[in-house]
């Protein structure tokens, strides 16, 4: 009883809002109505085609694979049913997949928790990310907590994509802050160094940077400094992230009046105190939408590591339809992987839009 009485006033305006905007903006006059019918009709037709292919005529289980490929049949999700473990976890040992699952959940939870405004202090955010990342690493690697050791070259699929994403953001964020501060330094050598590095990395395609880290660095550095290929690529990726993030933060810095620095100095605060307590909270607040945008872009860009030979979710997708019996069902596999990416990126993007509109309201 009480539920209907509270829910009704909320639901009613939404419905009326939709009908009013439809009446006003879609069927206001004859020309609009004709246009709306055509365009909505076209969209409905596309939706019908998609639903028809993906749901109504689809085959769902791997046992029914013989029904696939007929003239009238739609999507053959049997390939996903048979191969989803390969797509999600790559070549990770089959019996240990529960670890991979938990590790992925840890990263996803880290991202979700850091979207809650109450966690937005430097200490809380860095704790959450370091803990989330540590849980991921301990679970996946295993030897440190008494599980069977699985080396990084066996990591793959969605879990590798999430690993790259999390480590790039975790490493890149402090690097970006450092670069942004260097870029604003009073010391010309420091400033020019940061400026050149930022502009250089930003002018190069990410692929070139990663390729250099994977292929060229082994020639340039003595053996003991090289490290694993995956770590070289992560550091290069983090550098790429940092250079863009530094520019994002620079935008945030520009909005802060110089008087605040001077006021801090007059109160006898040190440089670090002024930064940490007065300036940076405002900088991050100003730069928040752009930062989220950068995080989204990073998640999308992790997909290119397939080119330099990592077994990420796209590579495992290619492997999933690579063998004889599944070779015709590339479309289903790509749609499945695209849906995973889309879900992550779209929700993060919508969250960024929401924050942007919230900030606009609070500025009024």
């Amino acid at each position: 009883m009480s539920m209907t009485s509270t829910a009704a006033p909320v639901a009613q305006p939404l419905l009326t809002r939709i009908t009013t905007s439809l009446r006003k903006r879609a069927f206001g006059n004859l020309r609009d109505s004709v246009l709306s019918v055509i365009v909505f009709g076209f969209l409905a037709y596309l939706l019908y085609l998609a639903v028809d292919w993906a749901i109504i005529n689809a085959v769902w289980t791997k046992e029914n694979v013989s029904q696939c490929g007929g003239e009238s049949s739609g999507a053959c999700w049997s390939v996903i049913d048979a191969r989803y473990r390969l797509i999600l976890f790559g070549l990770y040992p089959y019996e240990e997949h529960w670890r991979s699952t938990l590790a992925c959940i840890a990263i996803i939870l880290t991202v979700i928790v850091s979207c809650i405004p109450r966690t937005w202090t430097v200490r809380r955010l860095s704790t959450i990310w370091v803990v989330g990342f540590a849980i991921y690493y301990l679970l996946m690697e295993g030897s440190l907590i008494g599980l069977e050791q699985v080396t990084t070259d066996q990591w793959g699929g969605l879990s590798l994509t999430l690993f790259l994403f999390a480590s790039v953001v975790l490493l890149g964020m402090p690097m970006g802050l450092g670069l942004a501060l260097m870029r604003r330094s009073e010391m010309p050598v420091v400033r020019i160094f940061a400026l050149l590095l930022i502009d250089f990395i930003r002018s190069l395609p990410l692929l070139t940077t990663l390729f250099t880290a994977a292929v060229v660095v082994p020639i340039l550095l003595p053996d003991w400094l090289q490290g694993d290929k995956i770590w070289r690529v992560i550091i290069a990726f983090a550098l790429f992230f940092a250079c863009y993030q530094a520019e994002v933060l620079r935008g945030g810095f520009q909005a802060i009046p110089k008087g605040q620095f001077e006021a801090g100095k007059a109160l006898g605060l040190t440089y670090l105190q002024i930064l940490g307590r007065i300036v940076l909270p405002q900088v991050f607040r100003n730069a928040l939408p752009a930062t989220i945008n950068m995080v989204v872009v990073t998640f999308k860009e992790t997909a290119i590591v397939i080119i330099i030979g990592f077994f990420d979710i796209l590579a495992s997708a290619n492997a999933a339809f690579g063998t004889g019996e599944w070779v015709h069902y590339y479309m289903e596999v790509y749609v499945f992987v695209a849906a995973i990416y889309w879900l992550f990126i779209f929700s993060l993007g919508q969250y960024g839009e929401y924050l942007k509109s919230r900030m606009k309201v609070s500025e009024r």
Partner: protein
Amino acid sequence: MTPAELKVRTKRRKQLIQVAIVIGSIIVIWSVISSARTNLTALGITSGFGFLERATGWSYSFSLVDRSIDDTYLRTISIGLLNTIMVGAICIFLSTIFGFLIGTARDMRNLAVTSAAGVFVQIFRNIPLILQVVFWYATLIHMPGPRQSYSFGETLFMSNRGIMVPVLNVSVPVALVITVILLLLGLYLIWRRVSPMKGICIWLAGFVVVLVAAALTLVPADQPVISVPELKGLRFVGGVTLSVEFVAMIIAIVLYGSAYIAEVVRGGLKEVPTGLIEAGKALGLGPVSIWTRIKMPMALRTVIPPLGNQWIFIMKATTIGVAIGFSDLFYIVSTSITQSGQTLELIAILMGAFLLINFSIAQFVNWLNAQMKLKAH
């Protein structure tokens, strides 16, 4: 300690830090060079750009001009650079056109049109570009073979070998010259600050005139004006074959790029002050005139800087063509590295080329921005 002493000390400290950074970078660079020397000598590779004169001995998928395995590295790399620039230019051109159309659609009053444009943007912007590239590639190579190809009015054919389209029967250099003339015409119109809509009309008229002139004078007399593809036996003769890799790249990058540019354009259109639009309405202008004479010219001023960033992004994005074997600069350079081992020189060429291209685009955008400024300012 007096304030003056304190000041001197901070100054000293800052100088020390800077000197330390300079010395540190010199040490790092020196050790990198020496370690590279030893590693390369161990591999038996002589450094230097002498290898550019050697023949490559391998072939690749796509080229505008003649190619053979006897080409020197210099020629091969130049072809790669040409491919990158060409794909980048086509993608930038098409993405900008579609981006403006879709961005405008997102800003329209009609709810059906805005939602259709919104769906387009949300789908293509939120899926990684490389996934879209491999998706279109897989879709295109699974089309039927040449003999069962899809035909559109017997002039345009689609098969798993690519898309065969009819073309004006002129040689490649002539086509390049025509492109350059049309580019110059566009730049001249921007330089003269012709209003955007009038400029586009003049440019399209110029486009038709140049094509007709070329068709009348430059096509060899004994051949048809337009070369139409035709199935002879197992393959197509005439027309131009756009290879599968090429088409997949263009489709993917243009969809992705135009979704991004649409957002830029929508942002610009939203920034136009409502007072101006209301003033236009009060003067009795229709929606079309308001759009062409008030909204678009005003929006262009805020749109151009972020649009330039998107152009640079698209140029950089062409490198992922390597995933489907399109022979762009990155593909050529990485193949050259595995074949010749001249890693450092080739990476330097790759980086230099991209720095140069992106620097030029940035300069062009600055110039464009200056041309778009209101004259009174």
